[in-house]
């Protein structure tokens, strides 16, 4: 559905996006994972035609995206991070406006408005002003506006940002439904659990580059199945890792100031690890053991933690 090759963008001296390449098929949910400011939104804006790339090509359904390609833009749906709706208008009026921009009118428009309101389960509040909606409901209408014209490719820029768990759950279900109907979805988020549960494939971005890409299982295999122990405290991570090496033979995933993460075969290794730390006279303020997840993968690939 979309094929991106060598996409790059520079703002002055800052290289916001560097040589990004990937492709997404119909019905696939493709996640962009990374902390704020790593180039996710810039990449999305280039793929939507809002920004012109310095280099690279974007092919949507076999046609190249360029500023004048109205036909290609009709195939794109965009759900921005902000709630881009008119608060004084009702959900129906907002949707009718967005539909009108895509040339929908009359019965076709009415029918689509009804369809998407049903999709986001807001039919009963359709005529209420957006300003009276909760944050989660507004985000659902925001999503509905992005898919109203039935695009085959939908860009969703952190659609669950600032939404409570119940609201997130509802939105994620809608995204799955959309993918099941054959739409290709490019989804940016900095919630790792969300990306892990939702996305078929994930690209991990840092400093404008894609550092790793694949399904969660493929990314996990880069770290190893097993478990990881994360110790945090007032210590020098690399020095502690060196000291522990004599008594403990686990692979060091990451070490830094106040942080040491090691890979272990199973959960029972935790006791041995704590004993080894005590033998070195070091106490951890925070100690946890968990199965390999995207946070571990991100730490392994970027050398830093992904903070919400």
């Amino acid at each position, binding site marked *: 559905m979309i094929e991106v090759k060598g996409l790059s963008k520079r*703002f002055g001296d800052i290289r916001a996006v560097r040589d990004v390449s990937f492709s997404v098929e119909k019905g696939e949910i493709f996640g962009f994972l990374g902390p704020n400011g790593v180039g996710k939104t810039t990449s999305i804006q280039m793929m939507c*035609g*809002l920004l012109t790339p310095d280099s690279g090509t974007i092919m949507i359904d076999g046609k190249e995206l360029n500023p004048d390609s*109205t036909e290609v*833009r009709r195939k794109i749906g965009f759900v921005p*991070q902000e709630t881009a*709706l008119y608060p004084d208008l009702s959900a129906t009026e907002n949707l009718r406006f967005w539909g009108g921009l*895509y040339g929908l009118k009359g019965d076709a428009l009415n029918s689509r408005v009804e369809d998407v309101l049903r999709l986001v389960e807001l039919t009963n509040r359709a005529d209420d002003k957006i300003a009276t909606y909760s944050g989660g409901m507004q985000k659902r209408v925001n999503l509905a*506006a992005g898919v109203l014209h039935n695009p085959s490719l939908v860009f969703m820029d952190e659609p669950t940002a600032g939404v409570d768990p119940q609201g997130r759950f509802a939105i994620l279900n809608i995204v799955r439904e959309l993918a099941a109907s054959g739409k290709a979805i490019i989804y940016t988020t900095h919630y790792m659990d969300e990306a892990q549960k939702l996305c078929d494939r994930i690209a991990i971005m840092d400093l404008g580059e894609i550092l790793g890409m694949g399904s969660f299982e493929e990314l996990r295999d880069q770290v190893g199945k097993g478990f990881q122990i994360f110790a945090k405290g007032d210590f020098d991570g690399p020095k502690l890792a060196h000291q522990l090496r004599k008594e403990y033979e686990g692979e060091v995933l990451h070490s830094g100031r106040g942080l040491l993460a090691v890979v272990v075969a199973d959960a029972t290794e935790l006791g041995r690890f704590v004993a080894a730390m005590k033998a070195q006279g070091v106490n951890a303020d925070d100690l946890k053991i968990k199965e390999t997840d995207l946070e571990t993968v991100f730490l392994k690939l970027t050398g830093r933690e992904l903070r919400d």
Partner: protein
Amino acid sequence: MLKVLLKKDFRKLAKDPLSLLFLLALPLVITLIARSVFSPSEGVKFVVPLAVVDQDQTPLSGFITGTLTNEKMASLFDVHSIPLKMAKQQLHDNELAGIFVIPKGFTDQFVNQKPASLELTTNPSRQISTGILQSTFEILTDMLDGIRELFPEQIKVLSEANNLDMEAVFQLGRSAMDKILKEKDLLKFPVTFEEEKSKKKETGSSTNGIILAFLPGIAFMSILFVLSSVFKRQGEELENGMINRILVSPATLNQLLSATLIYSLLMVFLIQVVLWLVSIPLFHLQLFHILLLFKGMVYMSLLATLLNAALFSLPIKLSSIEAFSSIVIILVCLLSGLLVSPLIMPGGLRSMVSKSPFYTPVEVLTRSFTNKSYPLLTSNDAIFTGSVLLLLFLSLLMFRSKINRHRAGKV
């Protein structure tokens, strides 16, 4: 696409009853203020107190005096034939709006085809009455010039006769009188002498004059306020991602800006329509003054649009624009005579502002409300319109560029 964008804007307006009320109430308030400045209370006679000093004492000077005391003109002027010294004292005491002097030797100069002059001294604290007097004085001198131009033979006979024939003079004057009576309609200057006089006694200042000085500013500020909210909303939409979302659709940036501009102008047009509808019966405006009023409002709207477009095109954030805009608007309004009329400015500044093409909207608007004669088109119109449209175009280009910069994350 434009239709969809405009429909959304009007739907939003309809959903905001306070804005709609303000939009409709605005011209009503402006008109009512104007009415309170220019119009009489019910049943009060419209008269301007005027002293006529006839130092020439000839049949011609008697005829001139007679035109002002004529039964029909008596509805406009309260003429006192008193000595010059007494007249000056009464003017000083603000009891007179002006002194009209026919100097000795005027008739001689007039009939001998030599430059002849009449004198008019006006009371500066009575700006409205002064306007009436100046207009009348211009018509009167035009009429006398006309008599000399149209009837040179008769004037020559009168001159050679060395003794003015009253009948001949009145025959000449009859046609001139027709003219002055026709022009009198243009002089229907709705002001109450009694009301104005009593206010002066209470306050010791020209209250109406001050309101008159600020009226164009009130009108301009109101239009500016309406347009500012339109541009501010555009700025907000830029910052909250709405514009980005619109631009992902098949809508283009040019279509978006065009819709904003059209919406702004339609808003202002709505204000004008209400203002006209209310003004025409209240002021008994003639077609000419309706056109003049239209021109004044269009100019003010253009100026306000320019000011907004220029401010919002600056490469600064919306919050900073709001703080910055008040300073810029006050400065621009001061310099263009919009906030304070040049009538109450010091001499040098008054001269500079009143000659500026940017003073044109104020002048036009004031004259349309006061039913004063004024050319419908002057050279200042061309300079004003041309420069404002050019600056507006440049501002819109800058605004467009700002949106693009914002999209690139540079603002």
